[in-house]
């Protein structure tokens, strides 16, 4: 059975069907989406182990005098990504089915389906052409989803647009350069040809465009500016996809093409056994996470805040990967997977909050937990994972990353990483407090209630996944072993036990630690409920220095501290981080604006022809450019 072809073609077909017939019917379109993702998921599952499996398509395109053969090759990394993408999209679809009843953006389902089918091209492409096609297929629909055809999201989506077009062009340039150098478009072949070259100026120029493309996609410093903006303007139920999946394609690209070539990087030599280029790039990862962490402190929009958190996590992943050690790669990939899970979960809870309250401003929220306990618990577990605290999955991958850094004796890097990792507490607690805790606003007291069960399903699944991976990291690490073998890394630290975390400086038995943790929790719980009684009091019956708040016109709105949490700190340090990069991209955005206005005019008048037409034109343009 032709798996990849089926998924791609089916995706395009379903997208068309939905767009043509069911655009107005949210339920049917989402059900189709769910069926599609579920079906693809099952198809993909069957491919585990068949790493030699490939699908080739005849083609009529000639490049110079080479006949191009489009081939989709099953590979471990792509498979894991694909499984996660379709699995997550499946549950996201379930969530959206409930979500969309009231807040629905019309074109999201067909475009999303298109993206999913495109992702197959990226993940399994054997050659650069398909990879690039998939890449562009991924970029454009996201722009339309983010923009939602609304004026108010225009400037935010323009950041995404400008940077990703830049990335796409860079990728094209890079592919062209590779082709020039190696006379082949096959990814694996070109890598091996490049590797056999001596480190030369060619490779130096080669890597830069690819870097730009992948770093833009993964929202790394200094291209991080699009991420928070795109997240905040995208529909609430699409944000999980951006954070959880889309930015990971950048990671995927790096693993696919940059990582094998790092030893040929533009700075020759090695440092502590790490290619010097890679060493500097792992510092780039650290800078990414520090900048994103500090910027997240002052964010008032919950989606933006979490987007910054995603950027910070991308920083960890990049750092780990660029260490180019087995442990580093392991940690990087493990953290990618963990981050996919917990960040999707976090964004889903945020979408649930948005669904019930209709605002993403944290200062306008508060006390939602009292009305949405399941959502709160999910969010809590999500942020514990995001902060890298023990019984959740975020800890396990962070442990490996730290071990990897220490293994290479990059002590300063470890200290800097600690900064970012501790900083995560600051903004995550702020989100926890401002959205879910504190005083509940009067306007939310009666109107807000828990989301329907359909929307809770992904939350439950997510909670179970986060905790079980946290306690049994082997659940993810074990299936990865073939992959590590496949990329030729010695599986020195990869363990066979389900509940052991590998490490160069020491291992950890997570199960035992979890038992101890559970013991302590049970002990304290017993202690708490054995001793004296407790009485419940209303929230405004609070310490007010002896004053009756009613006398001073102080209600719940006026008794909730949610804005300017780290004000003293921000005032001292934020200008330092905020000025330079943002200014640069603002100018960049200013010049791209004219271009954007032109596009905006096309789809402003609700003429949906514009969407497809533009995609079509661009694709023709790209192909045309290559053929010539």
């Amino acid at each position, binding site marked *: 059975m032709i798996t990849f072809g089926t998924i791609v073609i089916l995706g395009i077909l379903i997208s068309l069907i939905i767009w043509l017939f069911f655009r107005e019917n949210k339920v049917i379109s989402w059900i189709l989406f769910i069926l599609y993702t579920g079906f693809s998921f099952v198809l993909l599952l069957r491919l585990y182990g068949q790493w030699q499996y490939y699908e080739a398509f005849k083609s009529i395109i000639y490049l110079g005098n080479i006949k191009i053969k489009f081939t989709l090759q099953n590979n471990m990394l792509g498979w894991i990504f694909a499984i996660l993408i379709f699995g997550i999209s499946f549950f996201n679809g379930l969530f959206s089915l409930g979500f969309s009843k009231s807040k629905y953006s019309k074109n999201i389902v067909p475009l999303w389906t298109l993206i999913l089918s495109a992702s197959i091209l990226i993940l399994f492409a054997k050659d650069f052409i398909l990879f690039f096609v998939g890449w562009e297929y991924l970029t454009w629909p996201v722009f339309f989803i983010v923009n939602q055809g609304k004026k108010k999201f225009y400037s935010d989506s323009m950041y995404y647009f400008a940077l990703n077009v830049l990335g796409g062009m860079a990728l094209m340039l890079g592919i062209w350069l590779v082709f020039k150098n190696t006379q082949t478009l096959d990814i694996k072949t070109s890598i091996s040809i490049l590797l056999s070259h001596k480190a030369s100026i060619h490779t130096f120029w080669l890597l830069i465009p690819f870097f730009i493309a992948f770093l833009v996609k993964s929202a790394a410093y200094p291209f991080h500016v699009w991420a928070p903006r795109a997240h905040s303007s995208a529909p609430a139920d699409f944000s999980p996809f951006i954070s959880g999946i889309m930015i990971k394609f950048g990671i995927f690209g790096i693993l696919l093409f940059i990582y094998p070539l790092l030893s040929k990087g533009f700075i020759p030599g090695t440092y502590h056994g790490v290619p010097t280029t890679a060493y500097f790039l792992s510092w780039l990862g650290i800078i990414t996470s520090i900048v994103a962490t500090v910027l997240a402190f002052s964010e008032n929009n919950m989606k933006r805040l979490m987007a910054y958190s995603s950027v910070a996590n991308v920083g960890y992943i990049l750092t780990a990967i660029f260490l180019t050690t087995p442990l580093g790669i392991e940690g990087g990939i493990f953290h990618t997977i963990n981050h996919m899970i917990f960040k999707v979960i976090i964004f889903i809870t945020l979408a649930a909050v948005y669904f019930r309250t209709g605002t993403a401003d944290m200062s306008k929220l508060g006390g939602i937990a009292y009305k949405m306990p399941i959502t709160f618990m999910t969010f809590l577990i999500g942020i514990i994972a995001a902060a890298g605290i023990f019984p959740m999955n975020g800890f396990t991958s962070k442990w490996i990353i730290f071990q990897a850094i220490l293994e290479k004796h990059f002590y300063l890097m470890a200290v800097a990483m600690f900064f970012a990792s501790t900083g995560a507490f600051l903004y995550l607690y702020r989100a926890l407090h401002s959205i879910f805790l504190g005083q509940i606003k009067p306007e939310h007291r009666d109107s807000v209630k828990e989301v329907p069960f359909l929307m809770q399903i992904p939350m439950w699944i997510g909670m179970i996944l986060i905790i079980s991976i946290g306690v049994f990291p082997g659940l993810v690490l074990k299936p990865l072993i073939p992959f590590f073998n496949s990329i030729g890394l010695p599986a020195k630290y990869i363990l066979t036990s389900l509940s052991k975390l590998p490490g160069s400086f020491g291992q950890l038995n997570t199960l035992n630690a979890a038992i101890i943790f559970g013991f302590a929790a049970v002990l304290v719980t017993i202690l708490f409920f054995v001793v004296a009684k407790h009485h419940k009091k209303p929230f405004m*019956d609070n310490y007010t220095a*002896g004053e009756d708040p009613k006398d001073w016109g102080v209600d719940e709105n006026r008794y909730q501290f949610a804005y300017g949490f780290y004000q003293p700190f921000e005032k001292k340090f934020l200008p330092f981080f905020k000025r330079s990069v943002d200014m640069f991209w603002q100018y960049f955005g200013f010049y791209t604006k004219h271009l954007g206005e032109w596009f905006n005019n096309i789809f402003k008048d609700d003429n949906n022809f514009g969407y497809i037409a533009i995609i079509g034109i661009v694709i023709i343009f790209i192909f045309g450019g290559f053929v010539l």
Partner: protein
Amino acid sequence: MLDKIQKDREKRQSAWEAVINYFRKRSLYMLHYCTGCGAIELPPIMTSRWDMERFGIAPMATPRQADILLVTGYASQKTIKRLIYTYEQMPNPKWVLGFGSCTINGGIYWDSYNVINKLDRYIPIDLFISGCMPRPQSILSAMKKLQEMIGKGEAKGYERYKQNYEWYKKNQRKLLERETPFLDGGEK
């Protein structure tokens, strides 16, 4: 038989109470709230000369954590309102100490238009300390006395407040939520 079980339970309970009362009397948190001029004698008691902390008495910031409320002197109408609010916020068991003559009968402010005369009409007082203002020694001895009372389970002001809640509320309402002037011809 049932009676016996009931009695046994009460016995056990009172034995338990007695044990807990020992700890209660040895650890008293007082609310950090200077309601009147008597508060000026509290710092000396806390500092090295008398050092209240050696009896386990320590100041606490909020009514939630406090065990004793000190009404240090006269209570104006505004203060009594805040005292009641604060007192009701304190969790049981809690005790009130009335400082100085002003809390007993108004003291030298007996005819003042803004100082209430009899504090125990509004909140239950466990112990009064006379004097204007009471000397540190007398405050300390009052604290010791209160500890004794707590140890014996005698200081039950908070239960009195619960039992006579209506009565206290009536008095409080009469004072604080008035809608007509007390004296004739009091328009403005």
